[in-house]
């Protein structure tokens, strides 16, 4: 009983993860609904929930409140062929590319240097151009359980032509409007300020899309600065942004964003960021990875042996602004 049809005015030719809301529902159906202790090491979490070929979404990035310890563990475990959602990335994508883990990147924005550029030129990594907002919105679509969402940008650009977007005639106004497909990542890596052992989590401060990323994804690995009592969670339900039933793993990782910052808690280590930059410029990334990733067994060991207590205390002291976060 087709009554009429909606013209598709144009569509992008880019490769994209095809949306499948019913498959995403089946993933959710099979998760445990009970309050079970989900604490595990970063090693166990990455082993269990990140596979070669996984579509991986992290939030925010290695500069600010990003899951840096989990990304290093992915490199340590030599995961391969990952498809990254670089929705507002920093040098995360470079790091994972240097580790040989990446074959595709959906790009919003990311720090780009010779490692990414060479990998793209040599065909080891393929990029698909989106935008920060369009990727955050695609995660929102995934979180809503719908196959696409309309939006009022992306059209009129080469981003459109290189993407999975479509331009249709809006069936309500008759005007052109863009659609973007939902994305439901295989794994979300999200660093949170606090959560309980079940995964009820609090993220403090402005942010990218931690909630949408968690809700859209098949598996959700949280790393957390602090594990708090569920009683505390229940006393202030308004502060919970991610509920336990979407979470698969809780990794206790103080300084888990190092060398990045957690606003209100510690600053980024600019010396380390310069060390990373120099390693890329000078082509000594192997030595960098050996020192910071392969040469240590865990995040805890890295913080103890490579960073040290004095530096940690300094980074905490440098973050002088706590208002609105912890006060």
């Amino acid at each position, binding site marked *: 009983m087709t009554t009429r049809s909606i013209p598709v005015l144009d569509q992008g030719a880019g490769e994209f993860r095809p949306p499948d809301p019913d498959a995403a529902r089946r993933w959710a159906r099979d998760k445990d609904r009970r309050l079970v202790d989900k604490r595990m090491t970063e090693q166990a979490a990455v082993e269990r929930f990140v596979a070669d070929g996984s579509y991986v979404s992290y939030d925010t990035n290695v500069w600010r409140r990003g899951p840096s310890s989990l990304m290093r563990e992915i490199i340590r475990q030599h995961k391969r062929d990952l498809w990254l959602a670089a929705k*507002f990335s920093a040098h995360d994508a470079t790091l994972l590319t240097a580790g040989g883990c990446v074959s595709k990147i959906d790009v*919003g924005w990311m720090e780009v240097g010779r490692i990414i550029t060479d990998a793209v030129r040599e065909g080891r990594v393929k990029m698909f151009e989106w935008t920060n907002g369009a990727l955050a919105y695609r995660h929102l679509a995934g979180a809503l359980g719908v196959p696409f969402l309309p939006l*009022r940008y992306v059209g009129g*650009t080469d981003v459109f032509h290189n993407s999975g977007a479509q331009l249709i005639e809006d069936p309500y106004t008759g005007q052109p409007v863009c659609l973007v497909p939902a994305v439901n990542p295989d794994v979300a890596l999200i660093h949170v300020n606090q959560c309980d052992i079940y995964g009820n989590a609090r993220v403090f*401060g*402005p942010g990218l899309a931690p909630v949408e990323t968690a809700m859209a994804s098949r598996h959700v690995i949280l790393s957390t600065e602090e594990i708090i009592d569920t009683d505390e969670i229940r006393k202030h339900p308004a502060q919970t942004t991610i509920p336990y039933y979407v979470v698969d793993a809780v990794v206790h990782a103080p300084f888990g964003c190092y060398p990045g910052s957690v606003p209100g808690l510690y600053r980024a280590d600019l010396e380390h960021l310069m060390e990373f930059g120099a390693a890329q410029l000078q082509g000594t990334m192997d030595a960098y990875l050996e020192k910071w990733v392969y040469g240590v067994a865990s995040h805890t060991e890295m913080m103890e042996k490579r960073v040290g207590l004095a530096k940690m205390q300094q980074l905490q002291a440098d*973050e002088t602004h706590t208002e609105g976060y912890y006060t």
Partner: protein
Amino acid sequence: MSSATSFTDNEAIITYASRLMDENRLYFVAIGGPPLLAVLLAKQLHAPSIAYVVEDGTIAPEMRLPAPAFMIGAGLASSRAVAWTDMNTVDFHASRGYIDDGVLAAVQVDAYGNFNSTFAGGTYDRPERRFGGPGGATEIASLCWRTMLMTRLQRRKFVEKLDFVSSPGYIDGTPGARERAGLPAGTGPYRVITERAMFGFDEETHRMKLLAVAPWSSIDDVLSDMEFRPVVPDDVVPLEPPTERELDVLRTQVDPSGRTIAGDWIVLDGAAQAAKAAPVAGAS
């Protein structure tokens, strides 16, 4: 206000942009870089209550200056906001029409204000130079009522044809081109701000139009650094150089680390500011 005789191209760009800003408009900027600094400068100098929204969901912060060196990693950058939201939320506010002016940096721009943040040279799959990507610029340039672009005036930046259209200007310049691409009605580029020239857009043709030229430059000088020829009206006005006061606040309060304001130096002949500036140091 006394004009300065020595400043970087980036200092000039940030200063010119800041002068366009007022408290009656709401601004949308990315998390760091020249656009944020321009708003902070305006806030310090002539628009103390100016409000801006940041791509990370921060709404109308009142950051205490001097600003931290690594803005993205510092809690201070979001401090004293009226609300902390997230990227989707501020994009929705822009989509609903609440955010007046998007302020953006571009690496390549064409005659209709379309711009490129993706790659230059080669092809998308085999780029000669790959950049960071569209970031939030595409949504900001699509959804805000007006777009202000900040970039250096160089021939490789003001091109006939972009290597990649990351973000939309007036597209092909024809009437309704943005609406036909699904963008909100009544929006588009407003100003392109460089260290030597300021551009607007012709209301009819939507082609870039020269509005002002710095006293040490000239119309011919400007045109020689552009691949395409903008509309050049009769009433091109002088672009007042940064003042000592503007530079002092910019250097001591807005970017004391000097990370973002660093650039090619413009040194003016002390006697006649119209003298040709000589670039003396070379950040690209």
